[in-house]
């Protein structure tokens, strides 16, 4: 008989999902951090995608509006890039988001010390604990990033609609928008996983004897 303990994937997904549901508001707060950061990322990317397309039409009226919106367009430019300042703001917002996630996940680990210790007494390996936390982060990350990307995309669309009128329907760069949306979702998911890494390892290293402690 093999002396190995196991945790099937289906079961770990189930445990993670239940943990999120049981601490719904806590999870929601973590997720909202991600929604905000990712929607900002998606908004900046998609706005540039649309503006690029507008520039490509060569319509002088629209180009004038772009300049009024603050884009530096020199004659002969074919694409617009985010200014370094804009990029920095996006990067900073993502950084703040990761720090927020680490903070929330550390709280969640502390709150579940006894639960983790008990699981270890029942035979859970370190890797099971890491897996449960990573799964939770992946679920939150996916849901939060998707919501954020959609929110950012819709905002970008509405903002350009107000500035350029219904003309934009004729030249919406669907492919670029789709790739920016997916990129934002992937980035958000990555951030969520990055944020849970340290808390999950900390949880896994916990000694099972902690479960025995009465005071807490």
């Amino acid at each position: 008989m093999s002396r190995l303990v196991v945790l099937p994937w289906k079961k770990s997904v189930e445990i993670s999902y239940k943990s999120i549901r049981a601490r719904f508001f806590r999870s929601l707060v973590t997720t909202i951090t991600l929604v905000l950061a990712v929607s900002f990322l998606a908004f900046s990317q998609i706005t540039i995608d649309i503006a690029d397309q507008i520039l490509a039409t060569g319509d002088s009226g629209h180009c004038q509006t772009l300049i009024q919106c603050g884009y530096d367009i020199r004659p002969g430019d074919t694409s617009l890039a985010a200014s370094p300042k804009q990029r920095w703001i996006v990067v900073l917002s993502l950084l703040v988001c990761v720090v927020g996630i680490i903070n929330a996940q550390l709280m969640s680990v502390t709150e579940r010390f006894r639960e983790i210790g008990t699981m270890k007494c029942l035979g859970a390996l370190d890797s099971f604990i890491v897996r449960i936390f990573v799964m939770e982060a992946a679920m939150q990350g996916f849901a939060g990033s998707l919501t954020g990307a959609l929110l950012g995309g819709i905002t970008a669309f509405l903002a350009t609609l107000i500035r350029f009128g219904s003309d934009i329907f004729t030249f919406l760069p669907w492919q670029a928008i789709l790739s920016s949306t997916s990129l934002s979702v992937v980035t958000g998911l990555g951030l969520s996983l990055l944020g849970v890494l340290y808390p999950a390892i900390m949880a896994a290293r916990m000694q099972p004897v902690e479960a025995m402690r009465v005071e807490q």
Partner: protein
Amino acid sequence: MKKNIVRVTDVTKDFDLGKIVVKVLKGINLEIETGKYISIMGPSGSGKSTLFNMIGGLDKPTAGKVFIDEVDIAQLDAYELAWLRCRKIGYIFQTFNLIPVMTALENVTLPMIFAGTPGEAATERGMGLLKKVGLTGRHGHKPSELSGGQQQRVAVARALANSPAIILADEPTGNLDLTTGAEIIDLLKEMSEERGVTVISATHDFKMLNVSDQVIWIRDGQVEKIQERDELEINTGGMSS
């Protein structure tokens, strides 16, 4: 023939607190026979919990050896220790420690899942165990929907999940009232007799003495005395009635 499930030889345990080293266990020798109901008694600070954690494979001694089923636990790697905790030992805690997000049944089947029991077999066995501890019909309840005594019953069922050789109970009645505590003690005794499982409990509870086959008294990091059942009845007969 007598068979020892736990053997502790010359175990010492020091805790290094930086400036001072606290010697908690000062050379403990013990042999615990299979199928017995053992109580470890002693005042707080006596090293009772430390000894208890050693027997449970939760802590390693500074010197000396702890054998569980003739296996030296210091020689085991992380995987083997996890397997030992999963299959050989069932833990019962003072604070029940059920997983709050899981139902009673899921709590009972969790160790079976770790042990690789297929879902349906685990459910069936889990339902059987819940029935055994007197919780028929409560399998879908979360720990928060159960009373303290009922939670501890779920914990007893969970401890029995993989038919362990040893049940380790750390002050199992510490958070329960007198009657409920007595019920849990009876349940543990019943399980011990019926399944031949060795029950080792650390306790302050004198009710526990009446059902114990052996009581190990710990004082100041050493075994003060070991009393067998027949000696006990003389001493505690007056108290129990």
